Structure formats: C-alpha cells, structure tokens
C-alpha cells in the first residue's frame, strides 16, 4: 500500500518510558511521551512539529531516526519498515534519515576536524575514500556555504552559524530522503538564524529533501514549513497546511500558542487579541483523562474531562482533536 512519494509514514506510534520514584525507587510509573500518533511526510515537503517542552516532540523525532524504540506502531522510511528491522536492513534504512540538533557545538567532536566529521558517515557506509572522499567533502562544504579549505579546521575555529553549516553538511553527506531538524536555529543569533533558514530552503529546492522541522518559534515555522502539526502531551491536536493553519487556527491550544508568540511589530503585537493560558503543562507521567488539554482550556466542558476527542477532518482539509471546534 505504500505510496512511493511518501518519505515517512508513521502509524499509531507510542513511546513510553518507565520511571521510578520514591525511596529506593519503589514506586514505578510510566511516562507516556508519545501516545498513538500518525503522520506522513512527502518528498520535498517541510512539516513543522510544534509544542511546549515536554509535549513529546523531541521523543518523536528521536524515535523516527531510531534513537528510541516505540512500544507500538509502525514507522516506514521511504517505504521500508524501521520498527523491528535489524542488521544491514536497518542500516540501509537509517541512511535515508538524518538529524540536525539544536546546539551545533554539542553535535561536533571538538578533537576532530570538520572534514573528518563530514567524512565519517561516508567512510562508515563505504561510499567514498581517498581522492573521491576529498572531493565529496569539498563539494558538501561548498554547498553549505563554506570553503573546501575549511575541512582541515576544528569546530572551535568556527562561529555558531558556521558550525551549524558543518552539521548540515554532515547530515546531507548520505543524501537522505528526510532530515529531522530539532530546533536547528534556536541557539543561533537572529542574523545568523536567517542565513541558516535560507540555506535549508535552498538545499531543499536543489535536492528535494524533506524536513521534519521541530520548533517552538511560529514565525520561523510560518516562513519555512508547508504543513504544521501541533502536539500536546504526546498526541497531535491539530494538523493543517500552513496557510490554513495561520489563517484559521482551530484548536484552542493552537490559538493559545499563536497568541503567546510575540510578533516583531509593536503596533500589531499590542493591538491583537490575545489568549493567555493559565497554568502549565501537566506532567507526562500523569496525563489528565479525557482531553489532555482540558485543565488549561478556556472552552472546556464536562465532556472534555471524560472523553478524549479524536482527530477529525474539517472542511478546509485540516484535522483537529477537539469536542468544541
């Protein structure tokens, strides 16, 4: 059934962690970080995953690249099932999905030159060596806006933005179909952030790579993404195309998130209607029954605390999980 244009197909994925607390860890509990989510990403598409810290967005991204095992569900990358795959089959799939993390200083080995950092995936996969490897590295460095002679330098000789370019070059070395970007510009200064966003867009136009873009910054999301997924306490609460999403957000949590992000325009920012949530994200080890958002929701009624709303399709193509919209 797999459509070859989908680079990622997630079905009903759940990721749980076992926790212990109390004296000698006698009381056990389960943290349901991700709880039954499904999502497709097409080739060349950029999908944003947004939500507060603790909503499960990083756990989901780690699971997609194979750093976490789901307790249930299926993850297909370019049509191949990841869950349960082993050995060479798994390695071949993993090549197609790469990851970029928030802090480039922590993603690079300070003792290895950036040339070596970019070469590593190519050597491990036995793709190139010798002169071919060198020219491949030079090409990758040029593609991300660095110079081939930078290959002999160490990470500390670069600025934060340049280091993130190196990390991007390394992620692209294996020509992945999907790159999971976990807050890739959050640690960067504003002027540098724009350079990296421009680079990500340009690389996508050239290579057709798809991005899963994890971010809390909705102005960046609006700029770079085709589709937006909002996550709250382990579940998706709204999925919509960018234009629909920003023109007509539906879930009360989406609206709250949007009004919380200040617009960089004083007149607009001070005149717009704002919905400020009271309270904070409940613990994922103790998710409220019914709709998980009902404890902070301005629209909550009795049914919300009993029955969990399913994601349902709306006329404009979005899907929303709410009893009242």
């Amino acid at each position, binding site marked *: 059934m797999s459509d070859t244009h989908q680079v990622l197909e997630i079905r009903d994925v759940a990721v749980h962690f076992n926790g212990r607390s109390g004296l000698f860890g006698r009381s056990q509990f389960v943290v349901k970080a991700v709880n039954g989510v499904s999502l497709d990403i097409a080739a060349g598409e950029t999908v944003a995953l947004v939500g*507060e*810290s603790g909503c499960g967005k990083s756990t989901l991204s780690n699971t997609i690249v194979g750093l976490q095992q789901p307790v249930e569900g299926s993850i297909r990358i370019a049509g191949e099932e990841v869950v349960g795959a082993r050995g060479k089959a798994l390695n071949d799939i993993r090549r197609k999905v790469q990851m970029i993390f928030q802090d480039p200083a922590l993603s690079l080995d300070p003792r290895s030159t950036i040339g070596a950092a970019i070469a590593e995936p190519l050597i491990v996969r036995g793709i190139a060596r010798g002169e071919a490897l060198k020219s491949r590295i030079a090409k990758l460095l040029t593609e991300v806006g660095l110079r081939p002679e930078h290959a002999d330098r160490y990470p500390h000789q670069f*600025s934060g*933005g*340049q280091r993130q370019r190196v990390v991007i070059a390394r992620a692209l070395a294996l020509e992945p179909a999907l790159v999971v970007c976990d807050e890739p510009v959050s640690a960067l*200064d*504003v*002027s*540098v*952030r*724009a*350079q990296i*966003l*421009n680079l990500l*867009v340009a690389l996508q136009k050239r290579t057709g790579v798809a991005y899963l873009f994890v971010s*809390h910054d*909705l*102005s*960046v999301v*609006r*700029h*770079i993404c085709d589709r937006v997924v909002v996550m709250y306490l382990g579940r998706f609460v709204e999925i919509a195309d*960018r234009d629909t999403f920003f023109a007509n957000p539906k879930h009360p949590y989406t609206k*709250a*998130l949007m*009004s*919380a*992000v*200040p*617009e*960089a*325009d*004083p*007149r*607009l*920012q*001070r005149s717009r209607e*704002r919905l*400020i*949530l*009271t309270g*904070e*994200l409940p613990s994922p080890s103790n998710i409220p029954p019914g709709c998980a958002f009902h404890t902070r929701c301005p629209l909550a009624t009795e049914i919300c605390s009993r029955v969990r709303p399913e994601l349902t399709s709306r006329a404009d193509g979005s899907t929303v999980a709410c009893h009242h919209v």
Partner: protein
Amino acid sequence: MHEPIRPLLDVSDLTVDIDGARVVDGVSFTVAPGEVMALVGESGCGKSLTAFAMLGLLPSVARRTEGRILLGDRDLATFSERQLRKARGKDISIIFQEPSASLDPLASVGSQIADAYRIHTGASRADAFEKARQMLVDVGIPDPDRRLDQFPFELSGGMCQRIMIAIALICGPRVLVADEPTTALDVTIQAQILDLMKKLVADHGTSIVLITHDMGVVADIADHVAVMYAGRIAEIAPVQDLFDHPAHPYTALLLASVPRLDVAPKADLATIEGSVPTPQEFGPGCHFASRCPLVTDKCRVEQPPLFAQGYGHRSACWHIDRIAEITGMLP
C-alpha cells in the same frame, strides 16, 4: 511621549574593560519612572555586562573604568561594596535568564523570599513570611501557602522565574533589571511572565531595564529600545520609531532578518554577512564597518557619535541619509 522632567535612572558613558579590551564602550541611556527600556543585541554585544555593571555585579575579570549610574540623585558608580549591598534588592534589583540556577536549591522558596525582605528591613520572621505570601499572590502563584514550604526543584521553570521576581520586588525597588528573563521558558509561559512584568509597571510604576535578543519581546513590552552592537549603542529610539524608521544599517538588517507576516514563505531572508568582531578585532572606527553594506573609508577610521534623528531617536552612523538604500539591497 515619555520624556519626563527627570529620569529615574541615568546611565552615562558606562565603560567596561576585560583584559584591556573595551567590551562596553561609553553606553548612555535614561529610564523614566514606569518605563521599560530594552537593551537588544546579539550574543557578545555587551548588553548583559552593561546590566551587571549597573549593579556592581561584574565578574572579577571585568572592570568598570568609566561612567555614572545615577539612580535618583545618587551615583551607584561611586558606591562601596557595602553601600551596593544595601542598594541591591532595595533600590535596584535584577533577575536572570536561568531561574533555577539563581535560586538556592537547599532553601525553601518562602525563606528565600522572606530573607530578601528581612535583610533590608529588619522585619520579624513572621512578618517577612506574611509579606512573602503576599508577594506570591502578586506574582500569580496559586496556592501560596503550600508553595512557601516547597523547594526550587519542586517548581517548574516558569514558577521559579515568578519566585525570582518576587524576591527581586519584595522591597519595592524602583528599578528592575531583567536579563533575558524569558529566554529559557516556553512561549506560553513567556507570555505569562511578560504580562506579569507589564502589570508591575502599571501597578507600582517600577522601571524595567530589559536585556533581550528577541525583537518580538521588544515589540511586546518595551517603551524605548537601545540596540547594541559590539559594546556600543548603535541606535536608541522609542519602540515604534525604531521598528518604523530604523536609522542604523545594523538595526535595519536585524529587523529584516526576522521572518514577518509580510515576507513570502520560503523567500530569502535578509542576512548580515560575516560575524560579530571580537573585542581584539575592534577597529578605530564604527564597529559595524566590517559587515556594513553602506561602509565607506570614513567609517573604518572614525567612530560615529550618536546623531539626533528625531524626538528621543539617535543613531551612530555616518550615513543615516543613505539608510533607505538598505531596503533596496534586501532580497
């Protein structure tokens, strides 16, 4: 119009050196009662050092070499450490970026708030705790009686920042310095904290010096903005003026590099080529010269003073008349 007869806080010519390098260079600004002054800039521009210097909290490698910090009619720059200790918390307070790192992990939040009050007023323990409880209500912490006995690890980041604000404000200081107070918090919590700060200004007339890199936060809360670059103020203006008519190439580019509603999706954003120079690389002229699209020979050798550009609006650029060219260079 916010210009009062006399500003509450008048910082002039503040200068800080680290190892002979001038990391804050002649920073001057004033803050009126009940006004929010934002110091914005990228990492390393000297905005946090400016804040620390105002409270005498500079790290030991840094030294304030010049400057006047008038709070009312007293100059904090001439204060002894003993006098500063009395002033900090009572007349001028500070909150930091990482609230959980600023609180004592081994003391209940109630005693941390009450201590701040007892030190400055000599109040009894019971009175101080009652005052602390009242502060928790003021900063919007539900169930204050239970919270007083809790420890920082039991509270979320947003809650810890509210505790920090309670400690900072319990003695009713006239000035609150907030160093990236919401950077470590989620946007929903950031919105709550910004609203709390607005309420403080409205209810108590507290003046705020807000250090931030986020133009959205500036747009939300600031009355005046000082844009800093490489240790100097590049431009200072009332907030709406700054966004509408930036008069320094750095400000103009910075504003254009933020994705805004009127920029088409996936279109190229404006960027600033190169990176911020280190203090060792500062030249004799304008510090932005190495990255500025309008640069001329004069910029490299002669430092531009802050030229008046309108009411309360000043810009340190030799080519203010050519700022419009920046717009033409944008993607």
